[in-house]
């Protein structure tokens, strides 16, 4: 096809003549007063009554109701608090378990790390080794475990509690 997709090849005399015919076509006008007749049947939107269509990520239908959102937020906060308390009260036991489990591979890695630090910098190595040896790995592991479990739950709960309600549904661009 050429630049004119109407033609299969170069425009023929017939094509040109048809274009001349088509060029004579004009738009028609409805009878006078048409706009007034339409406007008499149109409800002019009141300012502020318009809702802006907002696209949102899909949210399960249950979460659209505030009561479910607050329930989930509450249960998330409760569970994370309970988990934090449990970890705090059982810290020695958790530490002992983690140490026991990681003793084989963990101890070797720990020693290698200390050795590496000592080789890299005598002063830093000695200081780090002294601090780490005095506190031991228990508190570090306990704190990290608590944070890992508690943060996602708390964040989810807070997001559900404070997210704003949907403004309106997205409408499709359908012919009425």
């Amino acid at each position: 096809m050429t630049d004119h997709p109407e033609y299969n090849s170069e425009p023929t005399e017939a094509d040109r003549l048809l274009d001349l015919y088509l060029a004579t076509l004009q738009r028609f006008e409805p009878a006078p007063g048409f706009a007034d007749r339409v406007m008499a049947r149109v409800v002019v939107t009141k300012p502020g009554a318009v809702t802006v269509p907002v696209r949102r990520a899909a949210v399960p239908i249950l979460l659209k109701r505030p009561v479910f959102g607050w329930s989930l937020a509450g249960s998330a906060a409760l569970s994370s608090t309970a988990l934090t308390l449990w970890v705090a009260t059982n810290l020695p036991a958790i530490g002992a378990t983690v140490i026991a489990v990681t003793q084989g591979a963990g101890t070797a890695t720990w020693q290698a790390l200390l050795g590496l630090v000592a080789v890299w910098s005598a002063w830093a190595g000695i200081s780090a080794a002294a601090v780490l040896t005095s506190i031991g790995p228990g508190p570090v592991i306990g704190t990290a475990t608590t944070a890992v479990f508690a943060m996602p739950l708390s964040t989810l709960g807070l997001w559900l509690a404070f997210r704003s309600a949907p403004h309106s549904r997205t409408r499709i661009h359908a012919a009425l």
Partner: protein
Amino acid sequence: MTQAWRLSNATDREVVEAACTGREDAYRELLRRYQRPVFSLIYRMVRDRELAEDLTQETFVKVLNALDTYRSEFKFSSWIFKIANNAAIDHLRRRQLDTLSLEGAPDAQTQERREATQLQLAARGESPLDEVQARELGSSIEQAIGTLRPEYRSCIILRHIEGRSYEEIAEVLDLPLGTVKTYIHRARAELMTILGPLRE
């Protein structure tokens, strides 16, 4: 600078936004811009002035009362032409059914029964409106367009009278781009056949 001046220079999208804030002049601006194109499309489709005016009015009432559902990623012209074209096509389909029923009840077994169920049409005199219509649609090209299938007719009108792109016509008619090109090509071929004898 007046608000009216600004509206007449604004894009369709801006005018729709203004209408959504409650400005009646924005509604009237949309009417001013589209009443002729929409009426022309429907009139050439249904070929009856009075009916075309009713369908055009219905189209505008639907569109203007649903402006808050307009999605700005689409062209406003595509949206309104789509609704107008659907209104015309729906009417043509209904008229086809009515035409069938004018022939008599489909279950009529005998000639008498068929005649009894036929609708009697009053003879229509030539009103001033008919004269206007005959003048408007009486040219050879208008008559030739009137013989095309409705979907070919829509394509030719949107392309050659409204100057719409192939892509927009595809959007308006809900057809693949290739189908639109084919329809226009075939419609042109048919028009050339019909108008052929006039060249001599």
